[in-house]
């Protein structure tokens, strides 16, 4: 066998082995989606929790493996029931995006609890597995590879049979197709959903133990990525169809392995998320998926109840701005000034999200990627091309708007949670591009030495003066966004958000309006990124990750989607929180997740009401 063929064969086997693992992750996600029509973003966290449950059983309690596996599955099932009860059922009447966000919040809580209980130091299993291996040319596979394969196949067959041939399975499918009709036929829909979650989570936890044993490095931080990869597999293969989703897992594994073989190890996630976006844009039903199910997806905007927003009288608003201006002079603390300067930038970011999410009805889960584009645009222009502050700052907004809109345009015709997933993918891809495009961005080195802003002869290197720069930008941005919301563009966007079909029937080109609102939001996100770059003088591909996107969205939701003052309030609260809660720094993301869940559940219109 020629060496290139041997290499190709070896990488194919590697890809299938990895794909096996993705298939197992995808199965649980596809089950929940198929039955409840929901994206469960806590699935990755349940998978992680399962791996620790197995570890506790084997390493601490000393149980044999055949007892640890069902124990972990039981823990998973329990978590699944909790998830359904607290993060899904309360949102049954609202749009599915509310549930998606709630599962993100629940995932953050589970992740943080695991880190607090088990510490961030990695754990490994004692050597309990047989070590025989089978050599296949350049690669070898071991016993655990075959076990995982066996479990996957068993899983695919039994779930398929369960759903198609059993009475319970028919009930599950009925409640997913039309829950009202199913109820009338005597199907206990809530019970069905709970059962689906329990089953899917048990499967996820089982996958966690097996894959935890496989890599033998347990960390509390793997949940989100695992969930995202699992979801990518589902989208690639076909979301509502379990065997298709598992096949998607194999495809993803192959794609990643070939990608690494050709482009190098750091290209892995770039390839994975490029596949995600390609699937979403070109074949939303997946490579193996069947015809489209009828979209009874409620529109995103309507998860916010109608109600009166709290009106901030313009005079009161001016008074608040005055307080902000006077504050650093009255309270001489560089530390406080630093925190607040950061809060103003976060507020600008939250404003961009509240515009896109509230007025535009698009829950953007990757908005931090737009910040990253703006930050790098500014940073590179300042450091490499010697541009002064104002032109590079403004350029950042335009770059973010242009590139962001370009990337997001194909996604704008998607509905509901598909568009949110697409924005998540875009956020990830931007960061992977920044990491891999070394000649432009310096890759993992990051960009350092960003010079202090100079404007109208004033040097803003000191935090005292930077504070006023960011405050000024925030005030101007808030005024601009308020103006956009009040304009015909804003009114049309809200009409589209409320009822796209009705708006279309009035002759409105929905996609173009959504693109405009998204572009304007991206512009301000880019400006926020630029300010961040100038404030910290150093940025990298890790500075603007998905957790920042979710935090920004939480700020906007906390304040009230579409509410300008709300976004600012949300940003100040959530920026100040880590400093106030310094003693509980380990529990930071738990608090964020809890806030997100509680706001969605008990006050979805936010503190100041949505507009």
């Amino acid at each position: 066998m020629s060496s290139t063929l041997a290499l190709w064969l070896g990488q194919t086997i590697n890809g299938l082995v990895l794909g096996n693992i993705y298939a197992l992750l995808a199965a649980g996600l596809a089950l929940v989606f198929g039955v409840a029509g929901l994206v469960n973003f806590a699935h990755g966290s349940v998978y992680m929790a399962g791996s620790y449950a197995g570890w506790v059983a084997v390493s601490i309690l000393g149980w044999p493996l055949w007892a640890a596996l069902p124990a972990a599955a039981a823990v998973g099932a329990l978590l699944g029931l909790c998830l359904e009860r607290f993060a899904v059922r309360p949102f049954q009447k609202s749009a599915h995006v509310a549930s998606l966000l709630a599962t993100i919040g629940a995932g953050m809580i589970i992740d943080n609890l695991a880190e607090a209980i088990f510490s961030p130091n990695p754990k490994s299993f004692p050597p309990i597995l047989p070590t025989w291996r089978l050599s296949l040319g350049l690669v070898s596979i071991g016993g655990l590879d075959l076990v995982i394969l066996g479990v996957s196949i068993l899983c695919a067959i039994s779930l398929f049979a369960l759903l198609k041939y059993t009475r319970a399975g028919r009930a599950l499918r009925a409640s997913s197709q039309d829950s009202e009709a199913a109820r009338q036929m005597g199907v206990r829909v809530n019970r069905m959903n709970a059962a689906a979650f329990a089953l899917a989570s048990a499967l996820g936890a089982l996958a966690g133990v097996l894959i935890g044993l496989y890599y033998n490095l347990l960390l509390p931080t793997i949940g989100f990525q695992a969930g995202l990869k699992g979801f990518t597999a589902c989208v690639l293969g076909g979301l509502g169809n379990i065997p298709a989703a598992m096949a998607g897992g194999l495809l993803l594994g192959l794609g990643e392995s070939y990608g690494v073989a050709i482009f190098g190890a750091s290209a892995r996630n770039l390839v994975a998320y490029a596949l995600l976006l390609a699937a979403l844009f070109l074949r939303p039903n997946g490579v193996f998926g069947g015809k489209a199910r009828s979209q009874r997806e409620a529109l995103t905007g309507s998860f916010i109840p109608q109600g009166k927003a709290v009106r901030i009288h313009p005079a009161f608003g001016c008074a608040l701005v005055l307080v902000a201006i006077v504050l650093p002079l009255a309270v001489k603390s560089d530390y406080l000034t630093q925190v607040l300067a950061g809060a103003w930038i976060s507020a600008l970011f939250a404003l961009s999200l509240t515009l896109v999410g509230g007025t535009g009805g698009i829950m953007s889960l990757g908005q931090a990627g737009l910040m990253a584009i703006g930050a790098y645009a500014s940073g590179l222009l300042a450091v490499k091309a010697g541009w002064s502050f104002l032109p590079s700052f403004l350029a950042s907004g335009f770059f973010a708007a242009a590139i962001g809109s370009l990337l997001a345009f194909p996604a704008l015709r998607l509905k509901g949670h598909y568009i949110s997933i697409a924005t998540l993918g875009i956020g990830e891809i931007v960061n992977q591009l920044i990491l891999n495009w070394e000649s432009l961005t310096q890759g993992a080195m990051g960009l350092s030495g960003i010079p202090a802003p100079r404007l109208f002869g004033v040097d803003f290197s000191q935090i005292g003066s930077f504070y006023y720069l960011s405050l000024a930008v925030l005030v101007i941005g808030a005024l601009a966004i308020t103006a956009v919301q009040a304009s015909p563009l804003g009114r049309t966007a809200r009409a589209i958000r409320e009822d796209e079909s009705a708006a279309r029937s009035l002759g409105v080109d929905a996609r173009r309006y959504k693109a405009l609102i998204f572009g304007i939001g991206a512009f301000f996100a880019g400006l926020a990124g630029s300010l961040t770059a100038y404030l910290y003088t150093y940025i990298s591909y890790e500075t603007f990750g998905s957790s920042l996107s979710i935090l920004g969205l939480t700020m906007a939701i906390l304040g009230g989607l579409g509410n300008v003052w709300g976004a600012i309030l949300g940003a100040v609260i959530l920026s100040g929180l880590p400093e106030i809660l310094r003693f509980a720094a380990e529990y930071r993301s738990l608090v964020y997740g809890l806030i997100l869940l509680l706001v969605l559940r008990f006050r979805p219109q936010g503190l100041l009401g949505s507009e």
Partner: protein
Amino acid sequence: MRKHGLKAALAVILSLGLLVSLGAQKSEPVFIGVSGPLTGGNAQYGLAWKKGFDLALDEINAAGGIKGRQLQYIFTDTQNDPKQTVATAQKYIADKRIVLATGDFSSTSSKAASAIYQRAGLVQFGFNNSAPDFTNGGDFIWSNSPSQSNEAPAHAAYVRDLGLKKVAVFSLNTDWGKVTGDLTVAALKKYGVEVVLREAYLPDEKDFKPIITKAKSEGVDGIILVSYVNDASLLVQQIRGQGITVPIVSNGSQATADFPKLAGAAAEGVYVAGDFTADDPRPEVVQFVKKWQAKYPGQDIDYFAVHAYDSLKLAATIIAKAAESDPSISRKAVRDAFVQVRDVPSVIYGKIAAFNPQTRRVDEFLGARIVIKDGKEVAWTGK
């Protein structure tokens, strides 16, 4: 008469109070501000530092501290996040009790705060910062860390002396990994070792099989790792799992007890180009091991704890020197003491003659060639 008595009493009370407060000031502790990860992905290193610091403090304060004043450190958890190191720097600058601040875990997070320390005139002692350009931040930025420009060539020399001719280099794709990886590859080429494959992998990578298969198809006789413990333990397990038996030579981050624990049997026989072994016969190492075992019986010694111990003792020596010329221990006096300090004993280096005034680093470098045997780090005997 009564009035006079009252005034006299007041005068006595006031002067007593003044004396007491002066005395209190005299016995108030001297503070070092530490910036580092206590939570998050790098927490294990911050916790290792604390062990080293506490051991050093026991000795320093038992010997009278800094001219009679106790030495203490304030540890702010930054999670090695550049955004938090910056906020912490602001905090430390504003706290007038702090005479010296330390750098954070990674050079990048530390560099983000350097400008603030430099501008405010508070020394940033980046004891863990090995990036060659770390001290470029200004004359208040100092480090006693072994520099990558010494460690990488030592790693490459180890590879050469093991007789490896054709290797694959796997490095972590972070700022540290890139700089160290580039320096290591350059040194390998200089020593006549052929690098047929260079792969930079993502920090949270789990699946290394594709690059391992590539290395196997190239027919390498050794695999060189520039990694941290988590990825290194995954790599060695997967390399051995794929049936590859060629030598693995890693950088010094694996000189920690966690590595053989996590990697299990796969760590056996892995070579580590480290900075320190606990079984080094040098008298300062032997003494240190005794002190460690007294305070932390049964706990493994790792480089990060030892270096933290060394660094705190060095800092105490420098602060004491500053106190000699300036009893109020101004921050500027501390900086000047960095320039003037001479001949400080060190567990890692043996002795530090002085800081290099141009680079603000130490030029000494010993290095230690380690191999993992029976789950423990031992000095390499030469075959």
